[in-house]
């Protein structure tokens, strides 16, 4: 009887299998970019909703490459928004306060929507700044 190391076993983990499904994602992104250019319509793809293997994800990441911008956002956990080699295509990964991934998206937009501050937030910030200035003036 052969010992365990003599038994020829070739284990392929799910993370090593290319299923071919990432190709379709690239085509979809190209369509979204065209819509952004032609009509200004933003789009996004939920990567966690697709049956991509680990190898598919690595392949996709390689195809998309890296651009010049990387944004770190700290809001209930860290988020990383990375521009790909194709301007207007962003890879977005949201983590919760325990560092677990809660959403993983490809966003096609000039700037990811979560980065742009909301009108209400800007208004509150403005009021707060005015109060601060008033207090400083009163202090002087």
């Amino acid at each position: 009887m052969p010992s365990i190391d003599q038994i020829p076993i070739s284990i392929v983990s799910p993370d090593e299998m290319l299923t071919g499904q990432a190709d379709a994602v690239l085509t979809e992104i190209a369509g979204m970019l065209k819509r952004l250019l032609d009509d200004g319509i933003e789009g996004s793809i939920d990567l966690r909703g697709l049956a991509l293997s680990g190898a598919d994800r690595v392949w996709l990441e390689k195809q998309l490459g890296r651009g010049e911008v990387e944004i770190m956002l700290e809001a209930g956990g860290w988020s990383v928004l990375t521009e790909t080699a194709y301007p207007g295509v962003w890879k977005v990964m949201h983590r919760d306060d325990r560092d677990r991934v809660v959403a993983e998206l490809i966003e096609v937009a000039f700037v990811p929507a979560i980065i742009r501050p909301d009108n209400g937030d800007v208004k509150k910030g403005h009021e707060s700044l005015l109060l601060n200035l008033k207090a400083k003036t009163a202090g002087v």
Partner: protein
Amino acid sequence: MERSDTLQEKMEQNGMSRRTFIKYCASLASLMALPPSAAYAMAEALGKAKRPSVIWLPFQECTGCTESITRSHSPSIEGMIFDMISLDYQETLMAAAGHQAEEALHAAMKENYGKYVLIIDGSVATGLDGAYSCIAGRSNLESLKEAAKGAAAIIALGSCASFGGIPKANPNPTGAVAVSDIIKDKPIVNIPGCPPIPVVITGVLAQFLTFGTLPELDKLGRPKAVYGETIHDRCYRRPFYDQGKFAKTFDDEGARQGWCLFELGCKGPVTYNACATTKWNDSTSFPIESGHGCIGCSEPDFWDAGGFYKALSMPADPLKMAATAAVAGAAVGVAISFANRAKKGAAKSAHETTKLEDLEK
């Protein structure tokens, strides 16, 4: 109890920013298969929503559903309870007990009559007028009828509440039935699974709060967003099925290569659920990824479907087994069991490869 708090106010009190909430909504939108852009609409609508009262009654159940929910990764149960809903009654989680708990239940029902969301886990025993399962001296059947009257909507959590589940398995000694078999005049959302995927319940509640409606349901009352596709449709092993590459045993070369488990009894092709994409244990994996076929736990009567290790293409023969037992008595069943055990034992001692028939009763 303060009911005027909106989620926005609660968030601000807790120092939660708009962006944090958008992230939270992005995870819910992802779960409910809404377009990622819906996260912004959800954030706006949810921010203005009042916290709904939720009453959760456990019937004939094993607490697996509660275990599943309380171990959900995101959003956490704490977040769900404190930020999103007002959980006014849940026997496993609440501090109150006995008469105090019953008073809390009735106070919540009275105060929020017509507006609360009723969650049921466990099937409803109907045998002997429901006497098989009682809480505080009242049958589950009676409690359900009373609580359902004032509910805006009912969520049947888990396969037992949705379809009767394991308590309903043959020979169903307690006369177990699903919630929808008893209540006919209220909107009911079934969230089956044994246990169900934890974040689905939060997603359903979020949609209820955001759009004021329940999600679109399939013919079995399940949210289409989660149960719209089979495990097989979203399985990473699907390409092997398409190529005709199947593992024949759990330890053959095909199994090692990660080929499709269809011939080993995987019920993925007829099971509607999101395990393949949402996954379990903080999105670590799901059963097929661990090398075992799907057992179809989110489908009605999965326990009596003819064997977890029988391929779907093989005829299920529970009738034959039942007839055998009826004619020859229980002793035959015992004999079959011993014979199969002996077969398993023989295979083990001879270091034979375990085959399908060894695993089947």
